[in-house]
């Protein structure tokens, strides 16, 4: 068995685990095998041509495989492989949406509910809510995928959601 260290950004594919085990005779085989046990992992590590992405480094026992024989670098039982992507800092996405409420939804604290149901922070930038109609410009911060889930959740509650601008990255 080969021990593979998974960095934080790829842990959603390993059920949150920071260390998984894999098999194979080379780094390339190991990645293919890992993709069977943890679907989606290979797409994050390799590009469309199957080459390791340039902002991800793989280390075999602390040595960068780019300076060994790349994906063909042989591996054996007991080896430790680390996947180390470039990390930039502690940033996150901010997205703004224009939200319109149908009459029957106006009395409900929908934005509050969304903030509690999903891992997003909501910030109301502009709003006009009256007895029978209402709209708000709301900024969502959080992971892109979680924001998307929150937006789907909003639409399922019967409100109309339109993006205001593509995105704002802090």
């Amino acid at each position, binding site marked *: 068995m080969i021990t593979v260290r998974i960095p934080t950004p790829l842990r959603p594919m390993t059920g949150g685990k920071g260390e998984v085990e894999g098999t194979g005779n080379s780094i390339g085989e190991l990645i293919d095998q890992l993709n069977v046990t943890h679907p989606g992992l290979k797409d*994050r590590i390799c590009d469309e041509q199957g080459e390791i992405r340039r902002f991800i480094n793989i280390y075999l026992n602390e040595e960068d495989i780019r300076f060994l024989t790349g994906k063909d670098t042989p591996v054996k039982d007991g080896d430790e492989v680390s996947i180390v*992507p*470039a990390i*930039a*800092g*502690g940033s996150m996405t901010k997205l703004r949406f224009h939200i319109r409420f149908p009459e029957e939804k106006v009395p409900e604290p929908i934005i509050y509910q969304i903030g509690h149901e999903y891992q997003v922070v909501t910030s109301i930038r502009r709003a006009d809510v009256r007895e029978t109609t209402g709209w708000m410009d709301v900024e969502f911060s959080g992971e892109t995928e979680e924001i998307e889930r929150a937006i789907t959740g909003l639409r399922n509650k019967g409100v109309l959601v339109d993006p205001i601008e593509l995105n704002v*990255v802090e």
Partner: protein
Amino acid sequence: MDFTEEQIERYSRQIILEQVGGKGQQKLSRAKVLVVGAGGLGSPITLYLGAAGIGTIGLIDGDVVDLSNLQRQVLHTTPHVGVPKVESGRRLLEALNPDVHVKTYQEHINAENIMALLANYDLVLDGSDNFGTRFLVNDACFFAKKPLISGSIFRFEGQLATIKPHEGYPCYRCLYPEPPPAGLVPNCQEAGVLGVLAGTIGILQANEAVKEILEIGDTLADRLLIYDALEMKFRNVGRPKDPRCPLCSAAPTITTLEEHHVSCSV
């Protein structure tokens, strides 16, 4: 350079160290360091370098203090929400240690202003929060032949390296040749960071800066330190010079400063 009695008292705990001494304290007092970003990493970097008596600290950041910064950016305080970060930082550093000359630049660092800025400093610490700036600072430091201490954080994980290609060591592009393309950038797809992680990585950057200035110890010039705060494990991986590096190899493809604009696509 003469120290006053007050200064000798202030720095006594480090002057007493054989590897520092009066001579080392003079080196610290004469050093000029530029800190890119007055945020999560910039806060502990400047606090500890300021306390140690670094002569000149340049602080560049175009942002104002936001309430969501205060979970980790301990250089700023609640009454300073809305105040430019460099201004808030300057006030605190001057209260901490009036010996330190704090120079502030309330602007975003870019390809136009970076070379002129670097000319005034001996050493650069990168505490920026995006890949565009990170690669720009690396390239500019290479052209200006200035040592760079690079730190980055993400959720529970941190990375740290000393970059000195002008002394024969690898640069940041030897490690990662180019920034990730839009849409695949971890920093855009995920969010959140353990506040205190910024503290540990930033202070480790300050430690490397102190060692560079004092010319003591083993540096991180040929390795990358990786920290996992959840597991509480520190690991080193080797960081060789890339003979095909687009920047610092014998046949570079990057010969002038270029700016990468890395953004997220939805």
